[in-house]
């Protein structure tokens, strides 16, 4: 008799002789225990569950740093290099943001992550009539290269790695970063960092798009191609599932839609760039959310790594292992923050951060406890960094690679999530790829449905939320909130007007004309003309304006 059949026999005995009598005396808390994905969790996991799935160590896990990368992209993981402590930050003027960055670095942050205000994300200068309300609110205002210079005052651009959450205007902003670095003698080929540049998820969830999908894809693709040739240490895209999760996606949807987006980008770069997959794929990076449901989140990250490795190897014939390794940034889930009893959020984010670390993240942002009420203050951000530092230095979880591997439950759950995610990718394939799926509203609808179902479950009490539907208290949260100084708007606008007045008009116009021609000629890569325009002191709004004229603007069909 094999070990597994012997085990199954013993299990049956245990169920009958031990569990059944106990259940009569003490029934379980619920008839069914479900994960957030809706997977039914069994009472106990043993090698029998893995045998059910023909689980095999070498095939499903292998070794960290080797195919299929389930255990992590690097052989020694955090023993060699800890994850980057990278808090997403930026607000008000360039001066405010510079102050915040230097503060973050002074208390132990190890990389920067730039937040831009909505006008910057949507290609509008701060003096545009639609922009006025939003200047400096959710990030720093970045209409020109001057602002970038101020943000990085006394910060060594050649040493620090910088991540930028910017998509529809990614090339404009990256060009400003390059221009400032070059003015300080730092060559673009040595810059390290990441640019989000993931326009597809804007149409699905985040809504900060400008142009229609096709020219937007060309724009994103051109950045990837340019970086592959000129910026070998720069991650040219951060393909994001975070926003799907925030909009309501389940864990399997989150990774499936992200990988389906990634497939679309790879196809476009191969087609447009005529460069081999191994030349650009090592610089594709990812971004996921970490929720409080600990084990399912860990399983999600591990499943995503294994799936990407398989996609790159089997679909795209990648040969370089670096093309197959999924590296990702994590942010704790903003939607799980509560405005009620806000300090409880610290406990939530600690568990979420633990999930990210046990899932093998490369960098991490921990939300601050006050963010369901406003932008975080210095004090609350410091606690977010401290959460990361306690995990890294005190908890011991970073001392061995993928410590939960081999847990019957974790491995079973990793397989379950993977299986469900493949089904969603198959559906996207069946619809004709992600762009078509977006046009048909498939991911949007799935996510909106899931968000509504979640809300209904919260209201019925099926999903407990401490402070909201469980242990709620009558209270008015009294916490210190950060307010953006309304004067910022005027300061930014005045500086922009002065900047515009001091330009070589002829040079500027000729560069903008060159950009227009490039935009209209589909064969051209759009990156260099934008970089040249930025160097000739074109503003973000002017560059985006040229592209709007050439490509038009996108108005999304509203699905709810």
């Amino acid at each position: 008799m094999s070990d597994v059949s012997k085990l199954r026999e013993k299990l049956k005995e245990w169920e009958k002789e031990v569990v059944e009598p106990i259940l009569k005396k003490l029934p379980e808390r619920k008839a069914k225990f479900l994960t957030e994905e809706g997977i039914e969790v069994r009472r106990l996991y043993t090698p029998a569950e893995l045998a059910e799935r023909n689980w095999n160590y070498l095939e499903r896990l292998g070794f960290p740093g080797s195919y299929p990368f389930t255990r992590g992209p690097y052989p020694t993981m955090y023993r060699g290099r800890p994850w980057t402590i990278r808090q997403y930050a930026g607000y008000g003027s360039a001066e405010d943001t510079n102050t915040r960055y230097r503060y973050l670095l002074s208390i132990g942050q190890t990389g920067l992550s730039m937040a831009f205000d909505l006008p910057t994300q949507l290609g509008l200068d701060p003096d545009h009539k639609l922009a006025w309300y939003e200047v400096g609110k959710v990030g720093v205002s970045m209409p020109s290269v001057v602002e970038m210079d101020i943000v990085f005052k006394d910060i060594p651009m050649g040493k620090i790695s910088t991540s930028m959450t910017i998509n529809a205007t990614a090339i404009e902003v990256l060009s400003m970063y390059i221009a400032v670095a070059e003015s300080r003698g730092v060559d673009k080929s040595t810059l390290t960092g990441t640019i989000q540049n993931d326009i597809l998820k804007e149409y699905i969830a985040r809504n900060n798009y400008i142009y229609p999908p096709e020219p937007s894809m060309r724009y994103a693709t051109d950045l990837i191609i340019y970086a592959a040739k000129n910026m070998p240490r720069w991650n040219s895209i951060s393909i994001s599932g975070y926003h799907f999760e925030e909009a309501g996606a389940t864990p399997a949807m989150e990774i499936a839609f992200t990988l389906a987006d990634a497939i679309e980008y790879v196809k476009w770069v191969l087609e447009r760039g005529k460069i081999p997959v191994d030349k650009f794929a090592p610089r594709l990076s990812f971004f996921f959310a970490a929720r409080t449901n600990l084990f399912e989140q860990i399983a999600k990250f591990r499943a995503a790594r294994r799936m990407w490795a398989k996609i790159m190897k089997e679909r795209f014939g990648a040969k370089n292992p670096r093309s197959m390794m999924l590296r990702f940034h994590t942010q704790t889930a903003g939607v799980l923050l509560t405005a009620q009893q806000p300090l409880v959020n610290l406990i939530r984010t600690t568990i979420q951060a633990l999930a990210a670390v046990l899932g093998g993240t490369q960098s991490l942002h921990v939300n601050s406890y006050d963010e369901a009420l406003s932008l975080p203050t210095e004090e609350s951000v410091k606690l977010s960094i401290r959460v990361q530092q306690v995990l890294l230095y005190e908890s011991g979880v970073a001392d061995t690679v993928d410590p939960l591997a081999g847990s019957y439950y974790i491995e079973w759950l990793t397989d379950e999530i993977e299986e469900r995610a493949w089904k969603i990718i198959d559906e996207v394939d069946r619809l004709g790829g992600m762009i078509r799926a977006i046009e048909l509203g498939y991911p949007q609808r799935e996510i909106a449905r899931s968000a509504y179902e979640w809300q209904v479950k919260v209201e019925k009490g099926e999903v407990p939320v401490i402070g909201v539907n469980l242990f709620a208290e009558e209270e008015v949260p009294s916490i210190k909130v950060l307010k953006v100084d309304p004067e910022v708007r005027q300061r930014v606008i005045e500086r922009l007007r002065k900047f515009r007045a001091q330009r070589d008009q002829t040079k500027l116009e000729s560069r903008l004309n060159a950009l227009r021609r490039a935009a209209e000629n589909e064969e051209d890569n759009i990156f260099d003309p934008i970089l040249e325009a930025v160097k000739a002191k074109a503003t973000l709004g002017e560059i985006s304006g040229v592209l709007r004229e050439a490509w038009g603007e996108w108005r999304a069909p509203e699905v709810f």
Partner: protein
Amino acid sequence: MIQSQVEASKKIQSKKLRAIVAKLGLDGHDRGAKVVARALRDAGIEVIYLGVHQAPEDVVEAALEEDADVVGVSILSGSHIELVSDLLKLMKEKNLSIPVVVGGIIPPDDVEELKKMGVYEVLGPGTPLRRIVEIYKKAAEECGRK
């Protein structure tokens, strides 16, 4: 005379409550607005969902055109004071006196300020859908629309 009054009131009663739901400003976070739109619809309210990137002018124009009974706007970017103030100003200019409900990430102090400005109610994160539906209905009733 009496007959026609009865007819008129019947007509008012049978008219479905109409609500505008919009993302005011440039903020793209539309999960909350969509969930609210769906909950209102499921509760029998006619929802005109305007979607993202709506200027105050767009919302007022839609409210007039659609003969709305109540306006719901969602803002998570921190620009709620300025945006809602302009929205209310514009509504006044156009003689549009229907209640405005605000949702999103609103710091506690600003809740009071918005109400002082004339906002009917501010509904932050964690508000049950049941309550949201009640508020919309009550808002429309109190303003004599239905």
